[in-house]
């Protein structure tokens, strides 16, 4: 218990802020067709440290994907500011790469062209981007599939392409929006392990949206739990498991305990929501 639901939003004023993502006083409000406003969250403050793997966890409707897309510069910030490595987010930043839930591959382009797409938009020459794309295709284990079309690949392979495309542009921040939720359980397990080993080698700053408690516990340095009605940060959990982690980490007795606590927390939110 002591290790778990405790260190809410540790102030990081003493730390060097140059490599951080600073989210300060952020609000998101949607208006429905009748003009009625629905504030998903407000006054969200959060610091993502350099090299940190941070997960956003919460029930559907809590705005975890919205917050991620705000960091990505894809969704307007209604109030407050987000800075990524001292750059104010006002549209997509070159530092950030996004991995999408639905993979977002161009179906009319081959694997190598999909992986090279980010580099192409950044103006890299053909040789440069194809060389780099080949490296990344090897890294994610898709050697030999360069000239296949996405429809010819399994879901897991498609998301490897999505990951390779995101990494090809050498980002300092990786923003992942439920990247494995569309995959079957076994494939998801393999992808989680691969992401772990990749992250442990590169120490990229990762913001990872998930609705899976187990996935968040297995991968993250910190888990930020978002609530609904009212929205915003409810809790910050620090999974204490030593790295490097593998699938065996789930057998840690504390894993089960934390998992139960988080589950209770999400369930109580659902009950609150039902009563209102």
């Amino acid at each position, binding site marked *: 218990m002591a290790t778990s639901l405790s260190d809410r939003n540790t102030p990081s004023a003493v730390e060097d802020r140059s490599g951080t993502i600073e989210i300060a006083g952020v609000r998101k409000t949607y208006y429905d067709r009748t003009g009625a406003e629905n504030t998903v969250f407000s006054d969200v403050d959060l610091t993502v440290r350099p090299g940190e793997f941070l997960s956003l966890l919460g029930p559907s409707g809590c705005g975890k994907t919205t917050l991620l897309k705000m960091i990505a510069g894809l969704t307007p910030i209604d109030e407050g500011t987000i800075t990524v490595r001292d750059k104010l987010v006002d549209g*997509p930043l070159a530092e950030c790469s*996004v991995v999408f839930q639905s993979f977002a591959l161009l179906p009319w382009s081959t694997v190598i062209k999909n992986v090279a797409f980010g580099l192409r938009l950044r103006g890299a020459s053909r040789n440069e981007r194809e060389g780099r794309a080949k490296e990344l295709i090897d890294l994610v284990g898709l050697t030999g599939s360069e000239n296949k*079309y996405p429809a010819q690949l399994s879901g897991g392979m498609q998301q490897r392409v999505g990951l390779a495309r995101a990494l090809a542009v050498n980002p300092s921040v990786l923003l992942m929006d439920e990247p494995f939720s569309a995959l079957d359980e076994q494939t998801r397990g393999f992808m989680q392990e691969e992401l772990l080993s990749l992250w442990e080698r590169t120490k990229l700053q990762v913001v990872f949206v998930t609705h899976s408690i187990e996935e968040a516990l297995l991968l993250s340095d910190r888990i930020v739990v978002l609530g609904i009605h009212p929205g915003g940060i409810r809790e910050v959990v620090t999974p204490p498991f030593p790295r490097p982690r593998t699938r065996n980490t789930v057998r840690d007795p504390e894993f089960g305990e934390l998992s139960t606590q988080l589950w209770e927390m999400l369930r109580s939110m659902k009950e609150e929501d039902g009563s209102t």
Partner: protein
Amino acid sequence: MTAALVSETTTRSDRGSRRSASKAGRRGPASGSRRGSQWSWRIRKVVYPLLLLGVLLVLWQYSVSQMENRLLIPTFTEVAEAMGPTVRNGDTWHALWVSNQALLAGFVAALVLGIPAGLALGRVSVLERIFNAYIDILLVLPMAAVIPLLVAQFGLGLFTRSLVVFLFAFVMIVVNARAGIRSIDPTLIEMTRSNGGGEPQVWRHVLLPGSVPALLAGARIGLSRAITGMVVGELILIPAGVGNLIKQYSGFLDAPSLYALIALVLVESLVLIALANLLERKLLAWRRR
């Protein structure tokens, strides 16, 4: 005792062989005979449609020959006989030439104006809101009713005939282009923007390639509508081309020539649509798994 044992073994092997037989059936025959079955599949693909055509022609021939009073209904053989003279007749080719001028001009204009219009409607919601009602009107408007107005305004020349073709094809091309843009996964646009792409890159890398299937479908449907428009315009009011010749033949009660001419127009249409299909298959290779 022995009898029981024997019967048991036979039933067991029976069951085994049945199982393996059904397995083989499910998986398809081994490679040698698979080539054979592929052949027969190919032959069937050609033979069955031809068979249907044959049956229809025989039915045509038989049922019409049984009719007592048939003023404008020829038998198949009469049409086939008339085909030779019709093909050799200079009037036929002149009529086709005149009609096709309007088809070409009207259809190309419909493509050139309809594709950008549909793409813009699909992307810009303000335009969509302004023009939606007019698109619906164009869709339900009976074009035949408009032709007299066009003739009154623009006369009986090539321009009016092209305009009729244009009006028949335009809406279909617009509606399909609009649907093409709307069918594109918005995540692809987000992905492009997250990589620093602006609206021009979104169009170049996502919207245009993504709407190609719908544009081709629109062109194909638009083409068949354009051909209809070409003949209908000439039949209703404008004395020119194929429509005019059709009216002449039916005036002389020359049914075999009439149907031979219609058959020629059908052949032309089928060839054009086959070309459109071929283009579609070439451009959409990525869709095949």
